[in-house]
């Protein structure tokens, strides 16, 4: 049952399939910048639409996966609650005296009739309530899924086991380059003006050349910083593609394992049935 709620892609997701999540967020940020609405609302609404409004199936692959994970968690929580309620009911029944048990039995039939009369009205209300309650439970389960991720990331980050990668070093270098470029511009202009004033006349023309040359040097430094940024972007894209590949491999391995377990269970049942049949037939042979 879980497998059907949690479909896996048959092929590795392409960049385009995953592109939508962040680009959508970027667009949403732009759209919401004036009204100052948090982007999460947009993502949440998309996820919710899948549950409540099948007419608008604009759900990202991530949204579908999150809902599937939430369904799993929700069903586990519900079965736990049901078990607890059963245990409490059993304990309560055991504590009842015989007299009370008889009384409960005698009033059972009239109560049942009254209950039936109310049932229809209640059912109407329940339909409305159930939908809201279901959504609330799903939201709660989604928040639990995020909690797993948060706990894992905090733990691994504190232990120094994960990071933003070597690209951060590049960012510092880029900042350094940009500062250097800005300083060089300032120096060239100030020194150009001072020297131009000092030399004046004929020398002034020479200084113009010097300033121009200084600006060219600055331009090449700025170009260098841009190149460094573009390189980092390219590197990040390459790392993303590699990570996608590993994620796909993990999913494929997980599916293979689940399939193997399924086959093993079927084989065990068949083998078990054969053993039972053999045993049953044994005296006649």
């Amino acid at each position, binding site marked *: 049952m879980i497998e059907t709620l949690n479909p896996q892609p048959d092929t590795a997701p392409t960049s385009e399939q995953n592109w939508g999540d962040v680009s959508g967020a970027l*667009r949403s940020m732009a759209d919401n910048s004036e009204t100052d609405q948090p982007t999460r609302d947009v993502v949440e609404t998309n996820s919710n639409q899948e549950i409540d409004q099948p007419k608008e199936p604009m759900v990202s692959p991530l949204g579908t996966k999150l809902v599937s994970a939430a369904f799993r968690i929700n069903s586990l929580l519900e079965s736990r609650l049901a078990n607890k309620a059963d245990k409490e009911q059993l304990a309560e029944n055991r504590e009842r005296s015989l007299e009370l048990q008889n009384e409960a039995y005698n009033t059972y039939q009239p109560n049942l009739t009254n209950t039936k009369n109310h049932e229809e009205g209640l059912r109407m209300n329940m339909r409305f309530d159930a939908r809201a309650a279901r959504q609330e439970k799903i939201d709660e389960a989604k928040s639990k899924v*995020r909690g797993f991720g948060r706990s894992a990331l905090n*733990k691994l980050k504190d232990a120094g086991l994960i990071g933003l990668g070597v*690209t951060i070093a590049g960012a510092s270098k880029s900042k350094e380059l940009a500062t250097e470029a800005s300083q060089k511009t300032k120096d060239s202009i100030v020194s150009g003006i001072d020297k131009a004033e000092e030399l004046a006349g004929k020398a002034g023309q020479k200084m113009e050349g010097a300033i121009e040359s200084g600006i060219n040097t600055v331009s090449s430094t700025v170009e260098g910083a841009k190149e460094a940024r573009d390189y980092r972007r390219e590197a*990040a894209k390459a790392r993303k593609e590699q*990570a*996608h590949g590993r*994620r796909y491999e993990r999913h494929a391995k997980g599916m293979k394992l689940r399939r193997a377990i399924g086959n093993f269970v079927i084989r065990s049942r068949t083998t078990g049935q054969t053993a039972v049949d053999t045993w049953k037939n044994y005296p006649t042979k």
Partner: protein
Amino acid sequence: MNSTMITLEALEQFGIETNRSDIDNFLTHLNDMLDERVGIEITESLDDTKLAELLKLQESGDDNTIGDWLQANVPELEQIAQDEIDILLGEVAENSDDFNQAG
């Protein structure tokens, strides 16, 4: 409260303008998204028994204990987390020009 893994510095490295008024919202959104993606991968990697165990542990509210449990019970947890970070940052890098233009 999210894990605050993605920082302003990380956005700067891709040339994203970090002096915008909505940058905090964007950072929060990215970190929530990262928590969500890692959480989904964790949920998918666990069987029902382990998942029920984790849910029970989560109710205790001790983040450090949950972290220890995850490290012990989720295969390739470090790789999962690092991959999700790389994927998200890659998407940010790909879309950084759009973000700047949208401002």
